[in-house]
């Protein structure tokens, strides 16, 4: 079973490349990282200094041990003179303490830089997502938005916290040790460094192989996660349709693919780690042999031989760890790429450069030769002209895909038109600052998302300074006051916990209250009553009559019951307005879209 169940999808390649892309050298990742680190330039310079001191102190210890053996012992043997030894031991003690202090400062400073960068990235990414248009969010899906802000940010931190340290220490150790070995004894040092090419070859092989295996593993784990989350999220359908066995079959398949991918990754490490150890041990043995002969000949001292052995241990240890943080670099690099990609996206509806200040918003909406297309060459609105006088209530009807929702999204500036202008009180919406526009135009959709917090918080969402009396006035007008006070904690009921039992209709009423309290000049309702049952809908209708008074309103509905409160009905088809008039006029006008719909509606009531 090779995944026929998954089906074919166009986005496949692109999406998988995005979610499990190997590091792209010189891509957006490097640039973003530089950008993030620039403000910490000074701190980084200090960090480099600290790390140099620390490594110097660390590397000096075996050398001092050698000195202790070679120059500390003979005076004791010869004349019981402890002073040279004590002096050297004091130096070792000093080096040890210096290393400790430097190490501590390094860890704290490194952590501070990492955390600061993390805070910057988080805030910046969150703000950027908030600035991006709903059109972007439609395509990008919430799952990806969230993983950008969680797992990707974590991956970057992981790198800053452990990877950096590991890499810097490994590099300094390699260079420093090599230098000291050559200094201690050129010949023996050169012999020891013969291991270099082998190490380079092995590390290079591992780097390439693990990049490949990392990518495969990410792909496989993504499959496991998607299948797992979807079958748990849709468990009702799974159980109702006895899907368990087939699901188990699919899950076992992806689970096993993941296992196989992991096995490859583990086995790479199983080769790499002992490989490094083998090179290290062979080097030690060679040094021991060759050094032994040289010591035997008196060319090197026992202390030098001891120092060599100690240094070689230090030399290979960080190499083993490279395999640990190599994956860290991989995922951080991929994460940086993805974040850089997101941050590069310009908001689809930019803020005006020279905003026009609106005085009191009257609420006149005008569409001036508006053209709009989601995809090039497939216009949804070919050329729309419409003027809605301030205070008028408009009902938009028409079949699915006629362009009603698009019109609403243009009126709220969720999108900008591809041609023509949308004007509020005669001002092009692109010239109005977004917060001014948002307080003037509010849309309520079927999607009645409630935020964590109390019911009152949610109603106040658009006007945080509203008093409790304002809140109650809004809910009372909508007939929502009674059910809210009947909840265990009334207006203080937590939406996330006890509020879990709010029905779709009740949530919608809260969403309505939220919109009414915000008191916009223009209110847009996109299918906003369709999830209400008839009594609630009737309640909302009745409330709408009072609430819409003095406001411009655009109501989109596929049920005609909503239409009755409208001053004017627009029937849309293929992005054009085909009928326009008061409800009574259109019914009276005889055969037409509206009168047909109206007749069908009347029949459905019978």
């Amino acid at each position: 079973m090779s995944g026929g169940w998954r089906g074919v999808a166009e986005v496949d390649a692109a999406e998988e490349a995005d979610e499990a892309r190997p590091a792209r050298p010189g891509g957006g990742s490097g640039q973003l990282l530089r950008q993030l680190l620039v403000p910490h330039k000074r701190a980084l310079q200090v960090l480099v200094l600290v790390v140099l001191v620390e490594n110097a102190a660390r590397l000096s210890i075996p050398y001092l041990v050698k000195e202790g053996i070679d120059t500390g012992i003979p005076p004791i043997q010869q004349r019981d003179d402890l002073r040279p030894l004590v002096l050297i031991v004091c130096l070792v003690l000093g080096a040890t303490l210096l290393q400790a202090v430097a190490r501590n400062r390094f860890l704290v400073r490194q952590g501070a830089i990492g955390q600061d960068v993390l805070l910057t990235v988080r805030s910046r990414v969150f703000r950027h997502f908030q600035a991006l248009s709903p059109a972007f969010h439609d395509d990008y899906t919430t799952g990806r938005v969230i993983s950008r802000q969680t797992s990707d940010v974590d991956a970057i931190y992981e790198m800053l916290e452990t990877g950096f340290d590991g890499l810097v220490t490994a590099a300094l150790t390699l260079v420093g040790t090599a230098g000291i070995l050559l200094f201690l004894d050129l010949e023996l040092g050169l012999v020891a460094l013969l291991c270099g090419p082998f190490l380079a070859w092995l590390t290079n092989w591992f780097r390439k192989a693990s990049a490949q295996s990392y990518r495969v593993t990410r792909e496989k784990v993504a499959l496991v996660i998607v299948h797992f989350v979807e079958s748990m999220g849709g468990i009702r359908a799974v159980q109702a349709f006895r899907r368990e066995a087939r699901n188990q079959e699919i899950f076992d398949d992806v689970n096993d693919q993941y296992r196989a991918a992991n096995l490859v990754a583990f086995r790479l490490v199983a080769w790499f780690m002992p490989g490094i150890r083998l090179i290290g041990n062979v080097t030690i043995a060679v040094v021991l042999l060759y050094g032994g002969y040289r010591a035997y000949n008196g060319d090197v001292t026992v202390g030098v031989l001891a120092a060599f052995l100690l240094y070689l241990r230090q030399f290979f240890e960080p190499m083993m760890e490279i395999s640990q943080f190599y994956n860290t670099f991989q995922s951080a690099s991929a994460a940086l790429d993805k974040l850089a990609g997101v941050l590069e996206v310009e908001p689809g509806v930019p803020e005006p450069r020279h905003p026009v200040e609106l005085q009191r918003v009257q609420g006149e909406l005008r569409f001036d030769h508006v053209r709009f297309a989601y995809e090039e060459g497939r216009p949804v609105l070919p050329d729309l002209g419409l003027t809605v006088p301030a205070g008028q209530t408009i009902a938009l009807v028409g079949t699915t895909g006629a362009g009603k929702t698009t019109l609403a999204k243009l009126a709220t500036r969720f999108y900008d038109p591809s041609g023509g202008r949308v004007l509020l009180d005669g001002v092009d919406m692109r010239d109005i600052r977004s917060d001014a526009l948002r307080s003037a135009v509010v849309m309520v959709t079927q999607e009645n998302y409630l935020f964590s917090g109390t019911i009152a918080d949610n109603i106040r969402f658009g006007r945080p300074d509203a008093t409790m009396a304002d809140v109650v006035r809004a809910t009372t007008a909508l007939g929502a006051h009674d059910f809210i006070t009947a909840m265990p904690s009334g207006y203080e009921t937590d939406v996330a916990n006890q509020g879990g039992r709010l029905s779709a209709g009740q949530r919608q009423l809260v969403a309505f209250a939220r919109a009414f309290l915000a008191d916009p000049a223009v209110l847009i309702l996109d299918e906003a009553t369709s999830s209400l049952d008839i009594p609630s809908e009737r309640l909302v209708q009745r409330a709408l009559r009072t609430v819409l008074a003095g406001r411009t309103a655009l109501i989109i509905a596929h049920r005609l019951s909503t239409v009755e409160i409208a001053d004017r009905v627009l029937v849309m088809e293929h992005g054009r307005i085909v009928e326009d008039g008061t409800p009574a006029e259109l019914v009276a006008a005889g055969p037409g879209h509206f009168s047909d719909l109206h007749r069908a509606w009347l029949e459905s009531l019978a």
Partner: protein
Amino acid sequence: MSSSSASTPATPDVPDPDSQPPAGVHSLWRLRGYLRPHVPALALMLTAALGGVALAIGIPLVTKALIDGPIARHESDGILPLGLLALALGVLEAVLIWLRRWVQSNAVLGVETAMRHDLYERLQQLPMSFHSRWQSGQLLSRATTDLSAIRRFSGFGMLFLVINIVQVTATTIVLLRMFWPLGLVVAAAAVPIVWLSMRFEKQYVVVSRRVQDEQGDLATLSEEGAVGIRVIKSFGRGAHMSEQYERAARTVHGTSMAKVRLSARFWTFLEVIPNLAVVVVLLLGAIGVGRGYLTPGELVAFITLMLSLVWPVASLGVILAMAQEAMTAAARILEIFDTVPAIRGGERFIEHPRGHVRFEHVDFAFPDAPDEPVLRDVNLDLTPGETVAVVGATGSGKTILTALVPRLWDVTGGRVTIDGVDVRDLDLPHLRSLVATAFEDPTLFSMSARENLTLGRVDATEEEIAAALEVSQAQFVHDLPWGLDTRIGEQGLSLSGGQRQRLALARAVIARPQVLVLDDTLSALDVHTEKLVEEALRRVLADTTGLVVAHRASTVLLADRVALLQGGTITHVGSHRELLTTVPAYKELLAAEVEDDLDLVPAGVEA
């Protein structure tokens, strides 16, 4: 009244997803069964690792022999054999590491994969009462994070716990025997390290959990910012949300810095203590060599050996933290393994099902609110082939009523029967093959359209699929880029609410059930499409028992009879027209507003 296995679960024990289950060594011990198939591998790993320890001690001893023997005594003939011995031991050590890792990778992944299999299997068995409280994200972190914590411990942690203790003990003994005063210094140095590790681990767990919780809050805010983006945009509250997020991010920053400082202190001490021991050993050792108590070779071997102890001792803290993590993870997994599916199938089969559904004195309350019954004393009889519509206000329990038939939930009183058999006595897959539901908010999986459609009957033929698509007016599937093979759902092509509902309906029709439940399935369709679907549905419902939840008069007209659900019980049953004329509450629910000032509706249309 019902079989014992399916007897009414008074309070099905659904664990609380937000509480931490008590964890301990026993949690891990209970999962030992997963290691059983890998016992030979584990034995091999342990042997290889112990061999590695012996070699780690052996190589410095060879060095010592070399320094004290051939070099000190100026005998060149001893150098080659000792050097070759060091080489051989070194190669052997690498081979042993390779062997351990090679065997280990297979075994630990086997353990993890098996646990994930079992977890998934159990989760699929657990009923809605469980899943309605546990979100898929919470379950996912068990299937991924927790399982890898256990894998890490069972593969690396457990082994190294044993190995490190063995290595530390063995090396200390060797050191003590070599020159006991220095040996004592080394042994003494180990004490503060172990003590520090344990103390650190405790503090670290506390601070880590706080960071984790705060990161969880932050993730929730990310989620709200993403899911609620349209509302946020609508009200222009982006800046407010960003500030809120930043505040939370700052809190995480503060706690994380505390964590950074804590671990910086720990790691510093961890390196300082062995280095201080080196200072002491060097001082005393050099004096010892000077005065002849110790050979130079012994001193070198001594220092090498004691440096080789740093990692095993220091990592004890990390391993203990790993063990703690694994115990918590094991407890979290066991919590799910221990949840007994409250809904288990019976053994009976109906050989010639006719689809006669009866609700007899049915009561229902949610397990977390047993005192607030949603349904009480519901009685309803659906004769074979009949279609009954259930009408009631929002929140009146209509959906739950329909969910009782395929046992997505179980009654808390009374019983539901099909052809006279209590549904709780029926084999569960059999029962669910008799009943199919088209849900209002249909779940589409990220799979091919075909896979989504044939959810209830994998072996449906092309003709059956085509016929079902026609009934549900979902022929648009044929026009998708790859037809039935097009991937839909979150990871594939996105469909409109109406399209999804029509697929859900087709899915239910393909299952060819005796009882078809339509839970407000047509709510997102426009009037025109709804009409076409209803005409086709009438044919399907002609010989199928139908239970239809309806909000609109148009849907009610599919039914032969209507049941009115009020205050948790069925108050009236009759035809649509009967109820419309005789029951004001019914008219209130289904008749659209007809007000006197409305000139749109000609007089007399309401009845």
